[in-house]
């Protein structure tokens, strides 16, 4: 299983220039869904997500760097979690970090496309995030500038060398569902 966290934040501030943000780990979620035995989807999430990003919406540029702790995978079943951390899947001890780095963002209103590279099991492949919702403004609780977004992506775990359970027991395509908040630095 693979999880990629990509935080894309867009600056809607009236001020020009790039703005730097830091992901709020407590309010950033990466969920995944993958086919199990051809019967139904299995779901899970990663509980340790950290990252920074920089955006200049007026210039149409941005970059981001996200790190996910592979061992933080959580499928609400201890044995399954142990299995996904093993060399059969994420090999979390040998490859503790899953990273995503992007330096190309294409804005389209309150949506965007983020093109970057995902690294899992020491293998790096291009992955595109489809950001379906971007909201920026003053945080109503903590009174600081923040942005939030929703994004999705699809990856094939076999492209990263993760082929256990293929083709029938565990699917190849993973759908990623990301919702994140980032605080302006």
């Amino acid at each position: 299983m693979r999880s990629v966290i990509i935080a894309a934040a867009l600056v809607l501030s009236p001020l020009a220039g790039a703005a730097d943000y830091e992901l709020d780990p407590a309010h950033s979620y990466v969920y995944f869904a993958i086919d199990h035995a051809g019967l139904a989807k299995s779901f899970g999430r990663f509980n340790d997500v950290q990252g920074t990003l920089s955006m200049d919406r007026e210039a149409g540029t941005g970059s981001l760097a996200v790190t996910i702790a592979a061992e933080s995978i959580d499928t609400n079943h201890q044995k399954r979690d142990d299995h996904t951390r093993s060399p059969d899947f994420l090999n979390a001890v040998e490859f503790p970090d899953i990273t995503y780095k992007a330096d190309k963002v294409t804005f389209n209103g309150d949506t965007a496309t983020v093109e970057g590279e995902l690294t899992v099991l020491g293998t790096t492949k291009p992955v595109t995030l489809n950001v379906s919702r971007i909201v920026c403004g003053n945080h109503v609780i903590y009174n600081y500038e923040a942005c939030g977004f929703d994004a999705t992506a699809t990856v094939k775990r076999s492209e990263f060398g993760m082929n256990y359970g293929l083709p029938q027991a565990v699917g190849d395509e993973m759908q990623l569902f990301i919702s994140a908040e980032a605080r302006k630095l």
Partner: protein
Amino acid sequence: MENLLSNPAVQAGFLPFGVALLVALAFRPVGYRLGAGLALLAGLLATLWAIQAGFVFPPRASTQKLVLLTLLALPLGLLLHLLPLKPRVSVPLVAVLGMVAALWLVWPVLARAEGAALWLLALGTALYVGWQAAAFDGLEDKPQRVLSSATVLGFGTGGAILFGASAKLAQIGLALGAAAAAVALLYLLLARDGAGRLFTFPLSLLAGLVGVAGLVYAKLPWYALALLAAVPLAAYLPLPEPWNKRVQLVVTGLLALLPAAAAVLLTWQAEGGVPL
């Protein structure tokens, strides 16, 4: 056919057993000991192919390192088989090779460890693999009994790791057991010669490394490895000389089963069922 080859029981059991049996039979004319080693490696390589363990050079992951070491075990084992090395040379030699291989396998974790944890990990893993390699090499004068010890070590390692959360590593261990079992069966049926260094070196090295991988990268408890370390000792236990070699092979296997079964049972108790 594709469905058959994607069945884990076929991948780790029937396939390596069948391939090893065929290779051992085919190579009988060139020598039973040589054939035993080739059969073991052929059976294991068949499993590695079936589970798509992947040959990558340079290897990035531990499973890829196991594939490379399997391929290297062939020329190294052949060299050990052909050279007239006395035990006082071969035993420490294979021990050192095993220790180096172990450290290479766990290097990503060693590089991050510090202090006592670093030394414990380095010494523990190196000594385990070095011990297995040395213990099996010392059984050169018991070429029949080594077959059953080897079979039990493979099955015991694979069985314990299966409960220790890695099916892929378990399949490699089980494949070693299945391939060794094929050679042992051939001996039981034909009562020819036993196994030489082309068999004992790859078997002990790879079973040891799979055990270490299970400890470091999965959830195999350390005490399971400690129990598996006792498996080759079964072949050293004195048995009455008048006993037929076939009987000695079977009795050795039953004795070796004790610590191996304990390793599997304790891992099951500690970690629960097999991976989902």
